[in-house]
């Protein structure tokens, strides 16, 4: 029996998952010509056709998954891939060549695909040149299938698995099935990587940044992924298994304690109503949001649509997703955040030295108005449901709000002209996540309908710390008084202008932070759906005047450590009912 071994990574999605290791390999497959001629060419042709059929099944699976997740026929781009796969010209050319040259299918198939790829690469049309990516997407699946590698897609992960990989691409990450995948560990990435976001969205325990893991773990062995401590344990000892079984049991019992809170109103003990809403990434998560008692969607990230589609989805495709989501959540509000994409995600040849300080989010949209226009039109059309709100990310200057809003109104007018029904009272808000927006919030508040504080990015920018960088990530702390003072300033500025102020970073779900935020006067807290019952439990134990006193004193400390120590002491004293769950800050 293999020896137990513990590998360290970064915890990105909480919980514990134990199961059988499924290694998802992304290595390229070999396409060498076999030295001896193929003895039975007809059998080789049959082997090729079987691989095509298997791959078609795989692609159909993926398509169903994406359509279910986006709530719309969003996977049309896969139709083209399926047609490429069963293209009769290719199949007959490959079959004939196998017969004539008595050569292995891999070699011939690869040669014929290369020929088509070359033709498309030579095209003047950029769009056609990009289809080469589709050809190789399909081609690689077939070649993997020919090589007998069944693990060509995360769709194939059997029940009871923990998924182990070097990396998972955004389009594959979207296909992870939470019913089968009990934990995820990957070698690369940080907290904000796509895999991390997906894992949190699907509530799968996950760790990232486990260096050199694939050399130390084998397919089929037992492993435990501890998403609280950031470790993966391969071939755990019986004692270890027992320890984790009891941890899982405790977690399950705590969930039982929490579950009644899904239904209860989000109100402090003395009656102040706070909107608790959900941050979601996929359409399908609206169901989690409802189940856990969210009062709306506080943040719908739209990057997923772009990344799944690998290109700007058409207005129609986007409209269907936004419209479905709005209908499902009615009458509760849905805040759609416009693309928060880095330039490198949109233009494959675009690189920059400091992406966090670079060309991303609203800055890209302002420079590529057509791109922005498609999204705004889709959002506005979905506003016919009367519960959609729109939010711009990464605002750092007044001019951006002015320009985006002017553009927004021009598009609204255009839609009016076309006779399309749109919501004339649609709320427009901004993410407050750059220090400049926070400092200037008093001036910005007059031009928007709401603020949503993005505490994760705000902390990174204020403290000048990249939390993905291991050497400095210990400096990242949203309880830093510099961050808290800015939050106070933003809430105050919003209220002076009579607009509501929400917060949608991790801070919103932290039991230690909630009393402080209530004391500062926040109107809305938006968090991952699973965190909602606990947040409601905390909220329902609080009384506003005590929170205000705590907040006032907390901001006077010198460091994050001092603030947290103070909060722990005060919350335990003032609100003993929740003293037990504020223990360790996450």
């Amino acid at each position: 029996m293999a020896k137990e071994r513990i590998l360290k990574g970064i915890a990105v999605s909480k919980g514990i998952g134990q199961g059988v290791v499924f290694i998802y390999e992304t290595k390229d497959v070999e396409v060498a010509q076999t030295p001896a001629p193929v003895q039975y060419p007809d059998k080789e042709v049959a082997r090729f056709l079987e691989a095509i059929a298997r791959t078609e099944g795989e692609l159909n699976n993926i398509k169903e998954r994406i359509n279910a997740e986006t709530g719309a026929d969003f996977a049309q781009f896969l139709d083209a891939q399926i047609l490429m796969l069963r293209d009769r010209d290719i199949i007959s050319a490959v079959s004939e060549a196998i017969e004539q040259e008595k050569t292995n299918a891999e070699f011939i198939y690869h040669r014929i695909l290369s020929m088509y790829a070359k033709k498309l690469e030579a095209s003047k049309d950029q769009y056609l040149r990009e289809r080469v990516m589709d050809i190789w997407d399909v081609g690689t699946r077939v070649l993997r299938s020919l090589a007998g590698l069944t693990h060509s897609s995360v769709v194939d992960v059997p029940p009871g698995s923990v998924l182990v990989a070097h990396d998972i691409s955004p389009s594959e990450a979207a296909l992870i099935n939470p019913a089968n995948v009990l934990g995820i560990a990957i070698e690369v990435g940080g907290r904000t990587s796509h895999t991390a976001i997906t894992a949190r969205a699907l509530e799968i325990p996950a760790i990232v940044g486990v260096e050199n893991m694939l050399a130390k773990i084998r397919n089929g062995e037992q492993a435990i992924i501890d998403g609280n401590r950031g470790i993966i344990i391969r071939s755990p000892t019986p004692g270890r298994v027992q320890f984790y079984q009891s941890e899982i049991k405790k977690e399950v019992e705590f969930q039982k304690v929490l579950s009644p809170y899904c239904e209860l109103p989000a109100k402090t003990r003395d009656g102040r109503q706070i909107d608790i809403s959900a941050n979601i990434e996929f359409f399908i998560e609206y169901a989690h949001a409802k189940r856990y008692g969210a009062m709306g969607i506080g943040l719908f990230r739209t990057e997923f649509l772009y990344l799944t589609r690998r290109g700007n989805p058409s207005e129609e495709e986007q409209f269907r997703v936004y419209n479905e989501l709005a209908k499902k959540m009615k009458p509760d509000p849905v805040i759609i955040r416009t693309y928060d994409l880095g330039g490198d995600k949109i233009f494959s040849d675009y690189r920059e030295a400091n992406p966090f300080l670079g060309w991303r989010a609203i800055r890209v949209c302002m420079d590529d108005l057509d791109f922005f226009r498609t999204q705004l039109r889709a959002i506005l059309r979905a506003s016919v449901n009367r519960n959609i709100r729109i939010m711009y990310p990464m605002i750092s200057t007044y001019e951006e709000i002015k320009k985006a809003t002017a553009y927004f109104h021009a598009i609204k007018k255009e839609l009016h002209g076309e006779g399309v029904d749109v919501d004339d009272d649609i709320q427009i808000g901004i993410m407050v996540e750059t220090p400049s927006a926070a400092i200037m919030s008093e001036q910005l508040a007059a031009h928007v309908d709401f603020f949503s504080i993005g505490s994760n990015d705000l902390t990174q920018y204020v403290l000048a710390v990249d939390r993905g960088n291991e050497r400095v990530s210990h400096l990242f702390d949203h309880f830093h008084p510099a961050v808290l003072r800015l939050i106070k300033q933003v809430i105050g500025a919003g209220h002076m202008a009579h607009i509501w102020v929400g917060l949608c970073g991790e801070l919103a779900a932290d039991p230690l932070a909630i009393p402080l935020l209530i004391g500062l006067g926040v109107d809305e807290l938006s968090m991952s759906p699973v965190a909602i019952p606990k947040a409601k439990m905390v909220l329902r134990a609080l009384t506003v005047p005590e929170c205000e006193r705590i907040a006032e004193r907390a901001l006077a400390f010198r460091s994050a450590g001092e603030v947290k120590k103070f909060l722990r002491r005060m919350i335990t004293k003032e609100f003993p009912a929740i003293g037990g769950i504020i223990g360790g800050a996450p």
Partner: protein
Amino acid sequence: MIKENITILNENGLHALPASRFVKQAEKFASNVTLTKEGVKVSGKSIMGILTLACEKGSMVMLTTDGRDEEEAAAALRKILEGQD
């Protein structure tokens, strides 16, 4: 056999989505379907063939349908090329 010259009016030319629709439609008919552009002829039932023709908006192609349902095929496929379906 029906032969006709058609100008591609589809907004983005015969890109992946309209090309997929074209092929799916063509597959519904028993007739042989070909597209010819600048002397290059490809099967209308092969998406790879159609993509390599690189038909942008405004380009001229010859649509040929040949078989027992050639008339219905020509009518249905013309619509896609002209961006009216």
